[in-house]
């Protein structure tokens, strides 16, 4: 079984004013199978660009990316990116034509989408649309799950609930997962391993493993973890 190996040596964009804009410096990390990693960094540090490179949507960079196994991807973009002219269920089935009816039903039930299967995305709230995007990513039974700020612009309560649902799905069926976020608490709540990125051009400034299993973290442990992160970032 291959693991996720990311080694981007350099990535730049052509700036509108001419010249090149460096987005990613030398950035390398790897993630074991079934591990959940979180890339944490300030807005605009190149997190989304990195995710696009890993997803194979951007091939114009120096370096290499090795995907786990056959590299079957499940991606949750920042916006839900559902097809507005297809129902929620059709959206999921089009991405995962091989998924069985039972698997989909279980997935819809776990995400509270059972009653909304036949609705069009325009009839869904943002929270439901994000759940639909999660359902689509899980339905393909991915070997690598990529999540780009999946809870951004949701209210705190809803974001927390969705985070718990996601944690439960990942625990039930372990899948190598890479989460991109600027929210440290969100990262601690979900990930086994945190990678802190510098401002652009991005590189990894600290790697923090989170040892305990996700569901057993207490408030004290989280506080201790946050203190450790602050210390490590202070050194970097």
């Amino acid at each position, binding site marked *: 079984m291959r693991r996720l190996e990311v080694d981007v040596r350099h990535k730049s964009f052509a700036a509108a004013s001419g010249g090149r804009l460096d987005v990613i410096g030398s950035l390398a990390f790897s993630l074991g199978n079934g591990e959940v990693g979180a890339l944490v960094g300030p807005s605009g540090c190149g997190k989304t660009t990195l995710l*696009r490179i890993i*997803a*194979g*949507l951007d091939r114009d960079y120096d370096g290499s990316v090795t995907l786990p196994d056959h590299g*079957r*991807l499940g*991606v949750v*973009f920042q*916006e839900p*990116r559902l*097809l*507005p*002219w*297809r129902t929620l269920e*059709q959206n999921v089935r*089009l*991405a*995962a*034509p091989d998924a069985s009816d039972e698997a989909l039903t279980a997935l819809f039930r776990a995400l509270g989408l059972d009653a909304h299967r036949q609705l*069009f995305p*325009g*009839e869904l709230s943002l929270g439901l649309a994000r759940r639909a995007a999660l359902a*689509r990513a899980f339905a*393909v039974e991915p070997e690598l799950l990529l999540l780009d700020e999946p809870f951004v612009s949701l209210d705190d309560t809803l974001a927390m609930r969705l985070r718990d649902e996601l944690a439960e799905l990942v625990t039930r069926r372990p899948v190598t997962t890479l989460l991109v976020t600027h929210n440290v608490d969100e990262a601690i709540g979900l990930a086994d391993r945190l990678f802190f990125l510098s401002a652009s051009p991005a590189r990894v400034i600290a790697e923090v493993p989170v040892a305990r299993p996700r569901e057993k973290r207490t408030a004290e442990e989280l506080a201790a973890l946050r203190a450790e992160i602050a210390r490590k970032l202070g050194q970097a």
Partner: protein
Amino acid sequence: MAIRLVSFALLIAAWYAGAQFAGDARVLPGPWAVALMMADEARSGTLAFNLGATLSRVAIAFALAMLIGSAIGWAMGRYRTADRFGDPWLIVLLNLPALVIIVLAYIWAGLTETAAIIAVALNKLPIAAVTVREGARALDRGLDDMAQVFRMNALTRMRHVVLPQLAPYLAAAARSGLSLVWKIVLIVELLGRPNGVGFEIGTAFQLFDVTKILTYALAFTAVMLVIETFLVQPVERHVARWRPKAA
């Protein structure tokens, strides 16, 4: 629906008043005279025969122009090289008068059915291409990325991702295209076909038979109205069913 009927009745009334005012049935016959002639032509079967001939030319030329024009427009909207290559051709075709294309087609290919249909299709094709090109330029890259990461095959992408985005542009091209095509088909028939609505209007013109001209023009307009109501509009409604309803 009631507003439509009132509007239609008003049109007939205006026509009737105009005929009374003109006072000469050779210049502007009243609605009744035209209705009688329409019944006559329908009974003898010539109306159905000529309508059928024109309608089949419209259908074939329209289908050809939409199919090829849309494919060209999609490619030009999608690939910059195709756009740069095809643009001069489009500009030439768009600005070539319909009459020139028709006359040249008849000279080069003879007074044949093929020449007639190609001439009509060539007139419509660039308009379809230009409209669909705008649609292809506006395709959502985010959905494209989505289709790529989920490894959708080419057929699924075309049918579920690309075509629904192009639907409003295809509908606009079809709408304007249908009315344009049947007008050009009439000219093609007038100039070089032995049957069809255009041919009948041509002979009526030589005899200054305004009643006959109106009979054929209105009969064919009615056919197009039926197509619009029972074919185009239901298809549009089906394609737009996911959109939130307008108040």
